[in-house]
């Protein structure tokens, strides 16, 4: 138990891109050194910690849960406790180079409004979400008739924080409707506690567990 604790301390003290969740590793790889970054729903600050220490990024996080905010500040990050939908409103236009919304879009009540705010305060946005059209999900629904439960979306219908189901194709359609540009997209399949994974290029909407999109302001 004691050894475990020591290991945990060492692991938070030394940020390492390889120790991040696989989707966060990809997001981290997209961000240039010295960028100004806002992470919406930053949790304990794992991604920001790596970006700060390894890429000298100027990081800010917003997180709702007091204990996670506490842990982030304790590890030397600048993090605000609050609701992402409200907190984002205070920043002047183009305050950040990147605004990250990682695995949170499916929990947002007004996604279009949030994405617009995100692209107002940031020059670019990075949005990731679990892909609801993965073949396992399709198969579960088809064969069992129950609402699907997977590693990526592990909740029963009645206790899930995920109020929306999104597919990779849906997000592309959403970009056209809302009027923002998709600058880059990567579909991934994660294994081994989500730390490792593969990039899926063949039939991503069917085979990927997550979609990650780099987005920019549209022409409108």
């Amino acid at each position: 138990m004691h050894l475990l604790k020591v290991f945990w301390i060492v692991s938070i003290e030394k940020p390492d891109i390889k120790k991040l969740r696989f989707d966060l590793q990809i997001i981290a790889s997209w961000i240039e050194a010295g960028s100004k970054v806002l992470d919406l729903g930053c949790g304990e600050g794992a991604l920001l910690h790596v970006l700060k220490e390894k890429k000298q990024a100027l990081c800010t996080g917003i997180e709702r849960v007091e204990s996670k905010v506490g842990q982030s500040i304790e590890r030397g990050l600048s993090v605000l406790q609050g609701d992402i939908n409200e907190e984002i409103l205070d920043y002047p236009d183009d305050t950040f180079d990147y605004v990250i919304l990682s695995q949170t879009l499916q929990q947002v009540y007004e996604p279009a409004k949030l994405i617009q705010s995100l692209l107002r305060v940031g020059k670019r946005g990075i949005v990731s979400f679990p892909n609801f059209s993965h073949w396992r999900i399709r198969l579960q629904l088809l064969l069992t008739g129950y609402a699907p439960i997977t590693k990526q979306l592990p909740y029963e219908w009645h206790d899930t924080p995920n109020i929306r189901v999104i597919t990779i194709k849906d997000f592309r359609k959403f970009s056209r409707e809302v009027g923002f540009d998709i600058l880059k997209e990567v579909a991934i399949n994660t294994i081994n506690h989500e730390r490792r994974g593969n990039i899926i290029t063949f039939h991503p909407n069917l085979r990927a567990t997550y979609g990650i999109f780099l987005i920019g302001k549209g022409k409108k």
Partner: protein
Amino acid sequence: MSEYIEHDKDGISVGLVEKNFFTFAEPPDEMLLENGQKLGPVTIAYETFGQLNADKSNVILVLHALSGDSHVAGYYHEDDPKPGWWDIMVGPGKGIDTDRYFVICSNILGSCMGSTGPSSINPKTEKPYGLDFPFVTIGDMVRAQKKLLDHLGIKKVLSLIGGSIGGMQVLEWCVRFPGMAFSAIPLATTARHSALAIAFNEVARQAIMADPHWRGGNYYDGQKPDLGLAVARMIGHITYLSDESMRLKFGRRLQDKEDFSFNFNADFQVESYLRYQGTKFVERFDANSFLYITKASDYFALDDQHGSGSLVEAFSKAGGKYLVVSFTSDWLYPTYQSKALVQAMKKNGLDVSFCEIEAEWGHDAFLLPNERLNALIKGFLDRVYRETGH
């Protein structure tokens, strides 16, 4: 708020400290106060903890609240019954680590713990000032602290930390002397004293002034307005607690009895507690200082004084990094007031962290042992220490 002070349970302490005094504004160069009056000479009592490093870059200025003093931590004598008021936070290896930082705390202008206040001798009359003492503001307190730092040869501080009225001083520092502090930690405070807070202060002041021994503030040669001051303190203590903390701490439990007494003695534990706190307070605090300091906090409105009514504009002058902390059950300076601060900082592009700590102990929570608060302050200071090239 001294009721919580206890010896460190692990025996960790900054050790023996002494109170120092700095006097400036000797006539005819008196200090010009914000209300236009002059005051001099001005003496500021202060204490320091830890070692100042060679380039004077490890300074932390702690700002105390209404009834506090310069004695943040440690002991004056080995047999002192209690250490300083924030001994749980300031000391070797603690949240504010005196092995690393040089901590300074001074008694505020208008107080009665060694700095010039209404109980000090007026050089013109050679008697205590009483109500001849000019009205001082939070801004005046901060300007006196700046004089002290100039005297100590300190040009920049690593961090400013304070709760409640101490937090108001932190905020005042940031907009009045921008660039002077690398960072600031305003705790359980507000940028603008609310009608609720003013109302409680006014009732407390009326209690003092209604005491026949107050005699227009000229009581120093006779009996003091102890009853009035005790009632004022009782009111204060109600605002420092919360519905929840009183329910947990006292409930409707009776004090040393099985049944109601059917007279006006203290039946309930909460009555007994308030009476005790009131009586204890008059032993160490001056009633006129209470009047002056509460009035200074009522006058405090950073937005009006520095931003023509806009808090965003007030902070446009400020720099540095911030950690703002509020407590869920604080109804004297509720979280929305801290959030207004945070919002103004964000709108100015300032680097700000904010945490609303879940605590049931009301406004007093910032003085109580709290692992979260300890870790937040420690982590934040560690970060700004590293970011300033250490």
